């Protein structure tokens, strides 16, 4: 999110708060007066859904991002035929908590999908995500190859690429990646999660991974990014396999600036945002802010 945009939102939210008082708490966030660029919620021993809800509430609540009647796309990482304990896909409880908050905020429809790497049926099922969110009324669908449309990007590397129509047509987009290790890009989090909406032979973008991913961010603009660091995969990513490589952090990071969120995410692995090519490329392209000292981060113990 650009700074100007942020100020605008703050102003609107502040106004909403005043009005809210008049209407007897129509808008609920407790400390909404104070706005942050990012909220990091940690809750050792708490359920992922409690941590997620606390993080989003502290960030201004879901109503700040979702309006009544919105069609919302939630894009988790469901790329791999792995179970939640193996920390290769976004945590199903985190995704489910967000779905619920969206419906509570008045969303008309919530869609959840990903273009998986392993067999889609297995990924959707084994990740626990399909079961967790379809019971809440979200529309869980497998990728329909017919729905990729060539989109003009005019990026540094990608001039155009087939992207998924549902993302392009959504009223609001929420990016829900998991923080984990990756062999080439070192870590994969928010920015790299957009590979899941790319059609065609997307494997080729690894040749210029940083710039390519930053290019995608020029056309896909999430309203909210929720980084799942409940369990992080520290090595053998992006699909892991061994529980020995999984570290439990019980952490959820929420922000509107996905470059900033990834830059913070790097610190969970003892790295810096500048260690990651796509964070650097994203910052250079003006997608977001890499320098954490310039961001107002609220740390929250749940």
């Amino acid at each position: 999110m650009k700074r100007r945009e942020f100020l605008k939102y703050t102003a609107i939210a502040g106004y909403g708060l005043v009005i809210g008082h008049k209407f007897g708490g129509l808008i609920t966030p407790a400390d909404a007066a104070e706005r942050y660029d990012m909220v990091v919620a940690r809750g050792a021993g708490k359920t992922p859904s409690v941590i997620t809800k606390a993080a989003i509430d502290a960030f201004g609540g879901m109503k700040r991002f979702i309006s009544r009647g919105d069609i919302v796309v939630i894009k988790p990482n469901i790329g791999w035929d792995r179970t939640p304990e193996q920390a290769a896909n976004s945590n199903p409880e985190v995704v489910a908590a967000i779905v619920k908050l969206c419906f509570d905020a008045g969303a008309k429809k919530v869609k959840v999908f990903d273009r998986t790497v392993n067999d889609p049926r297995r990924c959707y099922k084994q990740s626990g995500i399909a079961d967790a969110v379809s019971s809440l009324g979200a529309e869980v669908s497998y990728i329909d190859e017919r729905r990729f449309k060539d989109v003009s990007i005019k990026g540094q590397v990608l001039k155009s690429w087939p992207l998924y129509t549902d993302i392009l047509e959504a009223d609001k987009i929420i990016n829900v990646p998991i923080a984990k290790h990756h062999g080439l890009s070192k870590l994969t989090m928010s920015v790299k999660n957009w590979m899941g909406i790319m059609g065609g032979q997307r494997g080729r973008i690894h040749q210029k991974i940083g710039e390519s991913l930053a290019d995608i961010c020029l056309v896909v603009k999430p309203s909210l990014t929720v980084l799942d660091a409940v369990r992080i995969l520290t090595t053998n990513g992006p699909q892991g396999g061994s529980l020995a490589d999984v570290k439990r952090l019980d952490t959820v990071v929420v922000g509107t600036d996905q470059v900033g969120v990834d830059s913070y995410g790097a610190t969970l692995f003892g790295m810096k945002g500048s260690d990651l090519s796509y964070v650097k490329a994203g910052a250079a392209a003006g997608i977001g802010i890499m320098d954490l000292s310039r961001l107002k981060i609220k740390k929250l113990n749940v």
Partner: protein
Amino acid sequence: MSKKTCRKISQGFFLLLFLFLFVQTESRGNDTLGYPVKLFLDFDPLIFITTILASQAQKIPVAFFLSLSVILATVLLGRIFCGWICPLGALHNIVGSLKKSHPRKMHADWHKTKYYILFILLAASVFTLQLAGFMDPISLLIRSFSLSIFPLLNHGIRGLFDSIYNAHIPGIVDLSEPVYGFLKKNILSFREPYYLQAVFVGSLFVVILSLNFFERRFWCKYLCPLGALLGLLSRFSLLKREVSEGCTSCGICESRCQGGALSEKGETWKNTECLACFDCDDICPQNVVNFSLGRKPHPSVNLGRRQVIISLASGILTVPLVRSTPFSRSDFSAPGVLRPPGALEEKEFLKRCVKCGECMKVCITNGLQPTFLETGFEGLWSPRLIPRIGYCEYRCTLCGQVCPTGAIQRLPLEEKMKVKIGLAMIDKGRCLPYAHATACIVCEEVCPTSPKAIWFEEFPVKGRGGKELIVKQPHIDLDRCIGCGICEAKCPVGNRPAIYVTNIGESRSKTNQLLLL
């Protein structure tokens, strides 16, 4: 309700059950299917007996013993399986009903053909050659449906709905897409199935069905080896047919007899050919035909001693004929032929594989494909993994679950994940970081083992103009590699991948090994 109606209901029920189980032979994301999809194969005494013979009774799946019930039922009641249960028989009836008149065309002696076919198959299986699957009706039916008929249906229906979708006619798509969604969810396969030899296998099936236009139930009367086996078993069955006083010898029953069991205007009845359809009972204008249970001597079956000996000898001679190829040598294999995980050692595998196509139908990535002659005639239509079409999904064990004969062993997941079906090798002349100074890590990214079987060496390379950059060059840890082929499937060097799997190092072979330990 007439016996004929009962029989038709029974046939319809079993045909629908067969089709239902066939459609359920597909993953829904769990590692189990939820239905006993190979049920009809479990009840098939022909492949049961030939598997026991060919495998010398080793590693016989327990479910196979269900077929003893069909044997018992046949011994007591005759060929009720053929008339009331067999789904291929029901299809023959359906196709045959399109033919208006039904005179008998072949001489009655042609009945014997199926027995000679059976003797060839049995004799070959005694000497460990399993050929029964080529002609066993259940294997034939599942194979034809899996590899050809169902893909054809999928392709046709998807093509139709896709053209409607892409035509952008307002209103129509709103109607067609829900119908398409329903079909996709309940009948069509998850991904469009494609098989090598779909045309070959499908054409044979169409020919077999078309024989009904020549003579109804041609296959069942003259060719089916399972029918022959059940015919022999029904030799002393308790089913008996009696014609009481008042028969006018009109001959209608003989002309309508589905198995060709009647001769001399319906007065002579061969119980081994009778499909127990009871049509003659229903159709008799004088109502003098009666079926009942009881002991009564049946006319003997004369197959001709000389012919029986010749067919047995032919079966035996087929064994060296089929096996006199380099594939019989232990140090020779087709390097590109990857067998499914859990497949027994090649010779043992071929002794059991009945080419039913269940594993190819259930394979989650469509990677299991029928061989042609890559492993010799004995291997025709046996499954091989072609990673470029579909890799072996690391945490999937479905092929071993649906194999009726144990040719592919059912392995627990933990064990399956360790089975090597081959090893990957890198083509450095095509691999981007090696040959073209370009970054690429796709093979490593998708490698499912933990730790990964692909590791990197950071290597300085120079592009054109001398600009130096450091690329990660992949290496394969042969200890860790299981040959699943996902690297080959996802390699961006598309048409001929820069990483590919051959079967060297496969766990099931003692001889096809590479490393010292």
